């Protein structure tokens, strides 16, 4: 994962609640065995509608998606995060993220910016009113700002996730620091726990 420190850019308003991962990347796209190229499938069913916000030229090149509450519900598909990143998004702002989606984001360096509902609403309205409005998201400070409007807010990131994002650390590498603890744990597992040997 590449380090993520500050994201500055224009934003797209996606004024819907409960945007599930089936909408973010429909299941037809999940047949691919690669990790790249999912941007073309991002919201592909909604993009069939010419008026859909991602089809509006004033939002081309935006790097932040501002959405309603309960973003990323449903399927655990990390393809949703890969699709958002591949399309060019670096952060998603929402008053509430589904747990698995949020986790997947932080593994890949897509910022899940969880804001107070009133700020979420204000940002949606502000970005809808002014597609040129720039937002700045600062990982170290945990802040989201629209300097032109004097809007500012904070978002939660636990210390561990923040440091991982800032340094681009690999989770597996971090866990392997505790290799000895894993080995010790393995030595005291209950004897009845199931195992499956051999190639089925």
């Amino acid at each position, binding site marked *: 994962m590449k380090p993520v420190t500050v994201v500055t850019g224009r934003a797209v308003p996606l004024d*819907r*609640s*409960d945007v*599930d991962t*089936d*909408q973010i990347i*429909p*299941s*037809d796209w*999940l*047949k*691919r*065995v*690669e*990790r790249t190229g999912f941007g073309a499938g991002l919201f592909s*069913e909604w993009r069939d509608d010419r008026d859909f916000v991602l089809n509006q030229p004033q939002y081309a090149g935006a790097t932040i998606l501002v959405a*309603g*509450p*309960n973003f990323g*519900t*449903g*399927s*655990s*598909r*990390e*393809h949703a*995060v890969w699709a958002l990143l591949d399309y060019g998004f670096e952060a998603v702002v929402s008053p*509430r993220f*589904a*747990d*698995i989606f949020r*986790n*997947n984001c932080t*593994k*890949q360096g897509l910022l899940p910016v969880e804001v107070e509902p009133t700020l979420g609403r204000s940002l949606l309205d502000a970005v809808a009113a002014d597609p040129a409005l720039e937002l700045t998201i600062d990982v170290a400070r945990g802040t989201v700002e629209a300097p032109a409007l004097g809007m500012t807010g904070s978002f939660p990131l*636990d*210390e*561990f996730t923040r440091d991982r994002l800032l340094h681009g650390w690999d*989770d*597996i590498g*971090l*866990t*392997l620091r*505790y290799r000895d*603890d*894993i080995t010790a*744990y*393995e030595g005291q*597992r*209950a*004897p*009845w*726990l*199931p*195992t*499956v*040997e*051999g*190639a*089925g």
Partner: protein
Amino acid sequence: MSTASKTNTASKTGTAPKTGTAPKTLSDKVWERHLVHQAEGEPDLLFIDLHLVHEVTSPQAFDGLRLEGRTVRHPELTVATADHNVPTTDIDKPVADPVSARQLEVLSANCAEFGITCYPMGHANQGIVHIIGPELGLSQPGMTIVCGDSHTSTHGAFGALAFGIGTSEVEHVLATQTLLQVRLSTMAVEVEGDAPPGVTAKDIVLAIIGRIGTSGGMGHVIEYRGEAVRALSMEGRMTMCNMSIEAGARAGMIAPDDTTFEYLQGRPHAPTGRLWERALEDWRSLATDEGADFDKTVTIDATAIRPHVTWGTNPAQVVPIDAEVPDPSSFADPAEREAAARALQYMGLTAGTPLREVTVDTVFIGSCTNSRIEDLRAAAAVLEGGRRVRAGMRALVVPGSHPVKAQAEAEGLDKVFVAAGFEWREPGCSMCLAMNPDKLAVGERCASTSNRNFEGRQGRGGRTHLVSPAVAAATAVAGHFATPGDLA
């Protein structure tokens, strides 16, 4: 239904374990016995007892291992099966879709390379990943179970802590057999009283989701409790835990009891002899202690629950079958109002229409929610006595696994379905998510025993209504939403 709710925010202060002899919840106990490492300012490192793998969310994880020159730490704690992509007809022939075929081949190749047991299409043990774990006896009380699939919550029915993970986490578990997790809050859902006859586990869980919403369980492990839950079979408990994620909860759990132990005893991977006795003693200690605190409690009166049908595009948009399609203006919250209006437009429904007057084109009985033997028995029972599927209706039964299919055939259920006009298919995820050829056409309306009524979930432009197997079968006969009791 009568409901009550309390939120105990005071106890939600951090991730430290509740130490000493303080009463603990089932999920606390399972969490604490899997702690490998704990440090201030870091998520807990949990050991994973069972890692289930399927073709869709694993290829990129195996690529990651190869890229870093890593191996699978515990192939013997890992089991793979092909389920999402597999066709449900002509499984003796090559898979027609080359992209699906490739993904299935890649799963088998990865498992062979890393020494993982794999049940490919057509294997006697193959089936939906959340069906085969329990039926092989691999899902046991007190375990941690993960899979790159959000419906991993299913296995919580055994008193396991089971949840879905993304592909990066799949790679992490393959490499280390552990997972970094922030401690989840606890939520008790008390389902009090007896559910009326004809009300199934599916109806209970839909009623719960309707009540707490798609985000009601976010950040929480749900523990389902109360008489109506204790009265359920393991199949019913799996249906309930399966849909925890539709209420936003990564995991749902039910304390193991004699129903659990009877289901497990004699299964291929269940312990035997002395080990069975030791396991049993341990499993009996898992239930939530008297006086243990939950961060949140929701109480639901089971006696008031009726068969449920979803009307919208998320599983919380649900009403009893006796109700009408709701009017968006009846929702106080503006976001809910707008979501309802959007859903009615997508679903092609008019507010005020009685659900029983909504006609259906397709009936799908299957998915990790409702494709176990008991589900098939319940649906077949509705069709007994020569009942026929309504003319023009497409009706599919997709058993959850080859063992389920074989059992159903041994009981003659396949003949009941076929005589009624249902298609009897091969096992897989099928029309639940339409990654194989089983899809809805644009505008087609489906009564489905699956778990998600999202836009396009069963095929682009398709309209999904979630129901129980009994309601699905009755609807197939009536041509519109119906309960078995409605059939003449």
